[in-house]
């Protein structure tokens, strides 16, 4: 049976992609942020996953505003990155696992989550930056991937509660797959930031840390906030933190914290990293 080895939360902001492309990891601005990923990389090497499910939002590469699925899942054997107009280098392709993806889609739909299935899916920085953070030191991506895109761009967005519930269904879907895959789930995005308007540049460290502690011990707290309440605290783009709840929902109610790391500012944001494993029952 497929097994969840754990979940990771991470920022996916594009400037991290540029910093990695330019080898700035030891630059004083970046060093503490990147050093905090070394334990994540070591943990990944140890648990050695076969598949990474990446929860992210598309920022206008695969989806334009003509069609905006609330939840979309890649169901292909390959995913390509492409020019998204953000002056980022284009990254090599990612392998998919169509059979596993279609199983997830079917299971989620049977659990009343009406996923959009995508047999062609370009993946943008929201997907690519986390992959780079975890595995850029290797010659090839060591896992197959499943992109799972959540609409955090055009309101109405799914609620935080709905994201947590999607995660719970995702956990069941993963664990009902008959092959012995080891699966890691990345919940990406956040934390507090607002790119737009006169309120641009907000960072709320207290709220970010509340979110991190909530995701570990009490995801219902974050899931109980309305999207307006989250935007008031974390900013219009900080709403991405609802995607962490998809990852958290897929894990068991009790988790062990392998690693937690926070740094701010990273560009316009607070950046939080969690590595969580299911607690042994």
């Amino acid at each position, binding site marked *: 049976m497929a097994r969840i080895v754990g979940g990771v939360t991470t920022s996916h902001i594009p400037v991290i992609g540029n910093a990695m492309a330019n080898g700035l990891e030891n630059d004083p601005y970046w060093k503490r942020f990147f050093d905090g990923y070394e334990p994540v990389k070591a943990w990944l090497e140890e648990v050695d996953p076969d598949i990474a499910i990446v929860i992210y939002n598309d920022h206008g590469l695969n989806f334009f505003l003509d069609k905006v699925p609330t939840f979309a899942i890649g169901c292909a054997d390959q995913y390509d990155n492409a020019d998204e107009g953000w002056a980022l280098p284009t990254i090599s392709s990612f392998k998919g696992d169509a059979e596993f993806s279609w199983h997830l889609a079917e299971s989620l739909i049977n659990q009343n989550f009406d996923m959009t299935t995508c047999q062609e899916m370009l993946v943008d920085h929201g997907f690519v930056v986390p992959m780079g953070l975890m595995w850029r030191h290797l010659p090839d991506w060591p896992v197959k991937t499943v992109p799972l895109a959540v609409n955090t761009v055009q309101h109405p967005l799914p609620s935080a509660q709905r994201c947590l519930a999607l995660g719970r269904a995702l956990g069941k879907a993963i664990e009902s797959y008959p092959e012995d895959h080891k699966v890691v789930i990345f919940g990406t995005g956040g934390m507090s930031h607002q*790119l*737009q308007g006169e309120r641009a540049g907000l960072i709320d*460290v207290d709220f970010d840390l509340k979110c991190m502690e909530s995701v570990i011990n009490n995801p219902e707290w974050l899931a109980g906030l309305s999207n307006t309440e989250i935007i008031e605290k974390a*900013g219009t783009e900080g709403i991405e933190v609802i995607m962490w709840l998809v990852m958290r929902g897929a894990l068991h109610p009790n988790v062990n914290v392998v690693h937690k790391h926070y740094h701010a500012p990273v560009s316009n944001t607070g950046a939080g990293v969690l590595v969580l494993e299911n607690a042994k029952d």
Partner: protein
Amino acid sequence: MTWLKHEYDKIPGTYVFDGKTSHAAYALNKMLFSFNHEENRQEFDQDEEAYAIKFGLTDAQKSALLSGDFLGLLRMGANIYYLAKLALPRGVSVQDAGAAFQGITTEEFIENLAKRSEGFEEELVKLGGYWNG
């Protein structure tokens, strides 16, 4: 024919991108989306006004576009992630854009980011369990 009001409309200095905004600015965002392709960015650079007309921008949107008025474009419904497709390839960073929204310098904007994050390490120590090198 009524657009319903939302709680988030009351958040100051904030333009939540919703159905109402997206409907009003569909052509504008479609033009910005076209900047995913280098040949379109080049075509725009050759004649910005002609490019805007081709996509059917309103006069007000066109005027904001040609004068580089980011706040005006945002208020007229440009989605921030799509606006980035205009800004970033031209070397305008998200900090430059943030500063423009507020009428301050980029240096001041960056300084404010640092100020808002000040003291986070102490908070991590208080909560406990956070990595610190």
